[in-house]
């Protein structure tokens, strides 16, 4: 399986995501923002970082990069897409996922390990997890405070589209939401960084539970 990782100017977890993909046992493919070409990959990760310096709003400028047109097509066709951190922000700005990510309520950047629960295994990126499984994952963000209007929130809850939920809310997110998916359940956005815990040498490889799920779903 080949998994692409988009690289925007200012992405800084792109190399980590490529590494995580390899750790998960897939082939990693770099996708340059200016090329409107997904190079035939089977899945795409939009990595973390500060695309375009997070200027204006995180993800606001990246969503208009050339790579986004084929990515939106790919999403429509049911292709698996995972947005991590800034990638999640890009996907909300691009309306591939509902809601938005606001400043953390304590107004600080937060780099820490958080406990989250896998709320649904019915997505392409959690198919390999156990229902209700608890994971400890790193977060590192300034704007991780998930927001959606009340109707959207209740729809997300009713349709089981909350993918990860914080056990202790670090940033003020509505309903303790750490990750959501789209209606078709192929596009997932999460604030925690699974690629940062993809190797026991770093103290944990729990992130592989998520990164490998897309392989499970694909029957690899």
């Amino acid at each position, binding site marked *: 399986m080949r998994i692409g990782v988009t690289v925007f*100017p*200012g992405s*800084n*977890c792109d*190399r*980590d995501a490529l*590494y*995580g993909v390899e750790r998960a046992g897939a082939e990693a493919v770099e996708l340059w923002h*200016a090329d409107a070409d997904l190079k035939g990959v089977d899945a795409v990760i939009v990595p*973390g*970082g*500060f695309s*375009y*310096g*997070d*200027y204006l709003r995180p993800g606001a400028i990246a969503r208009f990069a050339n790579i986004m047109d084929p990515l939106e097509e790919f999403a429509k066709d049911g292709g698996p897409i995972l947005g991590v951190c800034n990638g999640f922000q890009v996907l909300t700005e691009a309306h591939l996922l509902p809601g938005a990510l606001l400043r953390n309520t304590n107004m*600080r*950047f*937060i*780099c*820490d390990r958080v406990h989250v629960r896998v709320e649904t295994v019915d997505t392409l990126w959690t198919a390999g997890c156990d229902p209700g499984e608890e994971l400890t994952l*790193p977060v*590192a963000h*300034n704007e991780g405070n998930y927001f959606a209007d009340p109707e959207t929130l209740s729809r997300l809850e009713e349709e089981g589209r909350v993918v990860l939920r914080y056990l202790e809310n670090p940033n003020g997110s509505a309903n303790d939401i750490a990750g959501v998916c789209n209606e078709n359940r192929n596009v997932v956005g999460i604030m925690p*960084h699974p*690629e*940062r815990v*993809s*190797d026991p*040498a*770093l*103290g944990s490889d729990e992130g592989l539970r998520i990164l490998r799920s897309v392989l499970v779903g694909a029957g690899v």
Partner: protein
Amino acid sequence: MGLSDFEYDRILELMGRPPNFLELSLFSVMWSEHCGYKNSRPLLGRFPNKGTRVVQGPGENAGVVEVGDGWALAFKMESHNHPSAVEPYEGAATGVGGIIRDILAMGARPVALLDSLRFGPLEEERNRYLFREVVRGIGGYGNAVGVPTVGGEVEFARAYSGNPLVNAMCIGLIRIEDLVRSSATGDGNLVVLLGSKTGRDGIHGATFASDELTDESESKRSNVQVGDPFCEKMLIECCLKLLDEDLLVSLQDLGAAGITSSASEMAAKGGVGIEIETDRVPLRESGMEPTEVMISESQERMLAVVEPEKIEDVLYLAERYELVGAVVGRVAGHGDLRVIHHGEVVGTVPAEFLADAPVYERDVVRPNYLDELQELTVDELPGPEDYNAVLLRMLGHPNLRSRRAIFTQYDHQVGTDTVVLPGADAAVMRIKGTKLGFAATTDGRGRHCYLDPRGGGAATVAEAYRNLSCVGAEPVAVTDCLNFGSPEKPDGYYQLAECIKGMSEACEVLGTPVVSGNVSLYNETDSGAIYPTPTVGMVGVMKDVNIHATPAFKREGDRVVVIGKTPPLLGESMTSEGDLLAGSEYLEIIHGKTAGLPVRSDLAAEKKVADLVRELVESGLVDTAHDVSSGGVVVCLAEMVIEGGIGLGYDGEVEIEEMRADVALFGEESGAFVVAVPEECWNDLQDALVGFAYRVVGTTGGDRFKIGDLIDVKSSDLKKAYERDLFETHAPEGGHIG
């Protein structure tokens, strides 16, 4: 312009004619202390700088040491004190940006950042503001640029009120064969400016950094540069790509004194000249004069020398990374830094003159203040009644409290190489694709250096050595920032000279040469000089990064052992009460006194103990180790309890022979470690410790911290005191416990 009459005469003599305004500006920035090391150069010569692992010593943009398997580390620490005092967010941010470019100029990928910080007491609003904004600035830049901030240290003392210290260290990883030098070569080669456009930022920042801070400094805000980490990120990726494709002859960052400094240094090192055409420099503001273009300190810029046939590829890549890329000059045989504007030569100075700032050597005179300061009568100090309360108060003091509120604002994991997270004695990083790793720490002991410059200088290096040893790394080399007051005042010069002497002695004995560094003098405000504060950044190498130790207790039932100087609370201390309390945190926090003459370290003996601890870790026998430092052994043990969430009990009799209990508990002596091992390893540990002084201090377990019948506190209470948020509003401290 910051030049003295003597210096102006020297310029006349060198040039053989009066310089024009532009030429004089070049001298002014290059002969500032910041660029020219006028007062410190003769003293810096004392530092040992050779060693078996040293690939590059002082003189380049960063020092380089070999790790193994062809891998090397480029590292350097630099101060950004004055800019941070005036505009803390941008001052700290651009400090981080600047040190990253130093590492990038070596051709290395920046992989780790550390910061050494000093502020005045947090009771004052201005100090809280500086502290909060400096931390935000470091995070704001480092987090965005994608280099993890993995360690550092901070202390608070009145002497830093209004003159905070912001020292940033960066470490880069590189294959030895890929190292880049900064010397310009090849008559006719092109000089290319990469990065962002040039504006009027920080005009005369270098001379500003060499002035004392006064109320006027606040209004010099226009001097402070604004950082753009997004541009820096692109600059990193672009330069590494250019080097990877072998498109550059040499590379240099633009820091203080901008193009002037970079171009003249590149020229002087290569023994060639460089011509800069100021009208070809892409500008952000209109109407900039050639002089302004030459000394602008706009951030996120690099200067490269490129062979003409490769220029198209270089400019193409700059565009791909959305950077400014412009040919702004050429290498020439004449040896001058020549400034050309619209085809007309507007200034010419031989590059070697600019690099040859005059040197001032002064007499080293012991200041009178030391005698009074070093006197300490313990009997005059009231003894506390409740040692639990003292311990909690110590742990809750900003100097000892957990740094968690700081490092959780820094992305310390980006890059997926951080093996030991912040909060341990040193950061541990891996080198992907190998078993190798490295560790890094920053340390400073300003109060100690104030009380005894020479002893404090040595102790600073020794502390860094111990911190690396604790995690299991072999210490190899040092970078430093020498933060001092004015060298033109006898006290300041004495402190500078003596600290360097002490540091040199320690580096010699410990086998850790100084390979890079920077000097920040004139750290004074209207109310006086800062503590003399040399900060040391030390790196160590690890053969197997997976084998390391951290301070946290890991299991119930572990034997806890103090190695090295046995703490007086277990008897047989050879050190007097006064010596134990001299310069200690206990004396400072509980009694509000800065006094005494701390015992000078026996460096050779300390090295033996530290090396033993490292070997214990390397062998896999010990996975829990911590250096006994500020606050003494009890604070050290309490930290291990808090970090591990496992209690400690010492039920044996506490033997205090003819010593006050508070001194015995909180006295500080250099050179001790605490380690913990499971019962089944106890025999092996005892075998390894033959010939060394050691004492068992208890067994891990339960949820209390107990030292005989003197201290008995719930672990959760320790944690509560220790983990209070450093940024919460500070109520003024109450009276001292008497």
